[in-house]
């Protein structure tokens, strides 16, 4: 008996990581080679949100059934994209809590909660958290009151806790951090409160800050000249959605949000860099390698906080390393991800603010597009043609799948007086919602942006997409449907009414060598598999 016990201990010692998460950086770099897990926000650093698992096929998906449901018991929506490793699913739930769940049963293994201060400010953002990052034996989460916290993956105990910004002026963290080699990269929300945005990197072991990149350049920095007067000080530029990473180029790709005040451009003359831009930063130093601004001098709140998708494509006969993104402004873009060179930009949704893009990708503006006191009707609405929810890229179909919001809005211009700790938007919108709007999943040819198929949704969605090697695209509707489409044709193959709006991204993983898919909806997480 005693020797058996010792043998058991020995086996445990020999197989670290089989029972508990040990997620090395190298493992995340090769995430696609172990599709049984979901190791980082978008499934891999390239952010394809694609799973190589193929047990669930268009032929079999009709048999998909819930395995378990986890309910948060919190009235705020779950927008978290879970991570799964070695039998444990890590989910966040509002306000900024982390829960580790047993993938077999849905029962909790530990929870970590940070009580929010009574005077917490969430200006222009919902009380949500979009997920954690994993690295080695730690779980990283950002909180609404700006603590970046490292938790022990086995126990949920705090390893370190670093405050990265003050909340009283409107900063919050809602994004999942991105863990790369020894570093945790985290973005910030608060772009509707006149913050000065930044992107930060912290040492994964100690929580010490390694670098900060201000998204609004200060005096004597390149780009500062794009802000009239003192307007840069309240220039916003949130970094509130997880970016992607190219380990070979050692570049982090991260989107930047709207300028402040959102709808009142008069008080901030200029292009307002680096708002509404994609940044490519050196991961070691935080220095800018290049940037591309999708919407110069934005007045419609079209944050570029979308997931940048890294892939290789042949553009005009030449193989290129590209970054593909469907922007909130209604255009699909391909950029060279080594240089930032503009390669392609075409509309993928109804837009009425630009005649098109010029040869360097700068929009050619339609007249009278700006918000007015009486309201100006423009497509898309301020929530954009798409938003934070993830697109998906399948290397098998070579299609870029995107959830599209077809909705216009009357944009209003208001006053823009900055007061610390208050919203600083200078106007608003009146969306043409309900029966005047609709949603869609669109499959775009990655190299041209041409639409291959469309699946109509009853209402504009808030859910991301997951393509699988089984030939399916999973997504969610705002009416509560979790569904699967044929990845080649867009034909619906299966759906399940979850009973709550789907405002999250799907993932896929294995439990005991069987494929499952999971998605949050309403205030719950659902896991589905074949019987």
């Amino acid at each position, binding site marked *: 008996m005693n020797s058996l016990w010792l043998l058991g201990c020995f086996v445990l010692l020999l197989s670290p990581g089989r029972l508990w998460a040990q997620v090395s950086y190298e493992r995340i770099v090769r995430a696609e080679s172990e599709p049984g897990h979901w190791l980082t926000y978008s499934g891999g650093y390239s952010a394809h949100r694609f799973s190589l698992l193929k047990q669930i096929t268009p032929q079999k998906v009709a048999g998909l059934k819930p395995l378990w449901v986890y309910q948060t018991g919190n009235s705020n929506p779950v927008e978290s994209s879970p991570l799964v490793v070695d039998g444990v699913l890590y989910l966040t739930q509002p306000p900024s809590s982390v829960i580790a769940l047993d993938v077999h049963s849905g029962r909790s293994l530990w929870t970590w909660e940070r009580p929010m201060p009574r005077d917490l400010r969430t200006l222009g953002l919902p009380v949500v958290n979009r997920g954690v990052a994993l690295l080695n034996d730690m779980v990283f989460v950002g909180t609404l009151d700006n603590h970046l916290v490292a938790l022990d993956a086995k126990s949920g105990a705090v390893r370190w806790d670093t405050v990265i910004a003050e909340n009283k002026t409107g900063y919050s963290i809602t994004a999942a951090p991105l863990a790369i080699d020894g570093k945790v990269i985290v973005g910030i929300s608060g772009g509707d409160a006149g913050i000065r945005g930044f992107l930060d990197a912290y040492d994964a072991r100690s929580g010490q800050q390694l670098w900060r990149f201000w998204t609004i350049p200060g005096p004597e920095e390149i780009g500062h000249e794009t802000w009239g007067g003192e307007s840069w000080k309240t220039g916003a530029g949130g970094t509130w959605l997880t970016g992607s990473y190219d380990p070979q180029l050692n570049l982090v790709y991260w989107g930047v949000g709207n300028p402040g005040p959102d709808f009142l451009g008069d008080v901030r003359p200029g292009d307002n860099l680096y708002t509404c831009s994609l940044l490519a930063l050196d991961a070691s130093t935080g220095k800018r390698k290049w940037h591309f601004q999708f919407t110069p001098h934005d007045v419609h709140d079209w944050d570029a906080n979308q997931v940048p998708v890294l892939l290789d494509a042949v553009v005009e006969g030449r193989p290129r390393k590209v970054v593909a993104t469907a922007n909130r402004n209604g255009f699909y873009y391909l950029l060279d991800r080594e240089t930032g060179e503009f390669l392609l930009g075409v509309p993928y949704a109804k837009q009425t603010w630009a005649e098109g893009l010029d040869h360097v990708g700068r929009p050619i503006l339609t007249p009278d597009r700006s918000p007015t*006191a009486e309201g100006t009707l423009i497509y898309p609405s301020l929530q954009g043609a798409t938003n934070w929810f993830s697109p998906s890229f399948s290397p098998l179909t070579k299609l870029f799948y995107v959830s599209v919001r077809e909705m216009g809005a009357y944009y209003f211009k208001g006053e823009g007086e900055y007061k610390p700790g208050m*919203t600083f938007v200078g106007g*608003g919108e009146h969306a043409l919602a309900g029966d005047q709007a609709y949603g869609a999943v669109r499959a775009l040819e990655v190299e041209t942006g041409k639409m291959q198929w469309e699946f109509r949704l009853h209402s504009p969605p808030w859910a991301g997409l997951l393509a699988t090697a089984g030939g399916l695209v999973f997504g969610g509707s*705002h009416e509560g*449907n979790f569904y699967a489409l044929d990845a080649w044709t867009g034909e*619906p193959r299966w759906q399940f009414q979850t009973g709550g709006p789907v405002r999250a991204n799907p993932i896929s993983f294995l439990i005991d060598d069987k494929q499952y898919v999971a998605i949050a909806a309403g205030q719950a997480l659902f896991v589905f598999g074949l019987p």
Partner: protein
Amino acid sequence: MFTFIPRRDRLPTMLRRSYRFLLVFVFPCLLLAQTALQKDQVAPDSQKDLAAGKRLFEGQCARCHGIGGTGGQGPSLTRPRLRHAVDDVDVFSLIRNGIPGTGMPQIWTLNDREIWQVVGYIRSLGRTVPVALPGDPAKGKVIYESKGGCANCHIVSGQGGNLGPDLTEIGARRGAVYLRAALVDPGAALPEGLLTDYAIGYSEFLPTHVVTRDGREVKGLRVNEDTFTVQIRDLDRFYSFRKADLKELNKEFGKSPMPSYETKLSSSEIDDLVAYLASLRGNP
């Protein structure tokens, strides 16, 4: 940040002597008083604030509540006491947070000061003398129950048919302009509601006609809909269809199951009916 520093040489002698006193004692007290005022917010009343509140209201609220808050799709606000709000703080809170289960959305694009300006404007609406409606509610009640045939399809205080909306509190929920429009051209004034959380703007009582792939035909009113299914009701029952099973799904926007009363009733009879409906404020 603008800071006012008085020039010493222009201060009267007494004040000059007490300059230090002012700096040390009076200014901090003023600051404290200002902080207390901000903490215990009240709706501002200055003409400038009212004008700003009016402008914001007309831009962002009037689509539902009508220009001047006379009501429309949303309730009239031209009364001292509002249904969901006892005081200014309540009004502020429901503008900021919305009212779940109704068409009133959360308003995050206004800052606190702007909301207080809107609250001030709404409060000023409560002080205006409501325009007396031209009709006679007692006569309107008779029309409702007899010639109008309204009770065939509508419930008031528990009595009546159940195809159309319950009108027990319709006077508290809708303005007179909207009520008249709904009687004259019902198809253009279908109420809008929520088919899903946060998704306002869906026509309720929308006439919908479906034909299934096996040839079955149903005409009724849309009750609910998602991407894959639609729920319909008629006088007798509910129906549920998978859209994949339908050959036709016609949502007849611009139409209503309710007849227009433009020619069925005289103009003064419509006035009476509107006055009666406007008087329906809920069960005691």
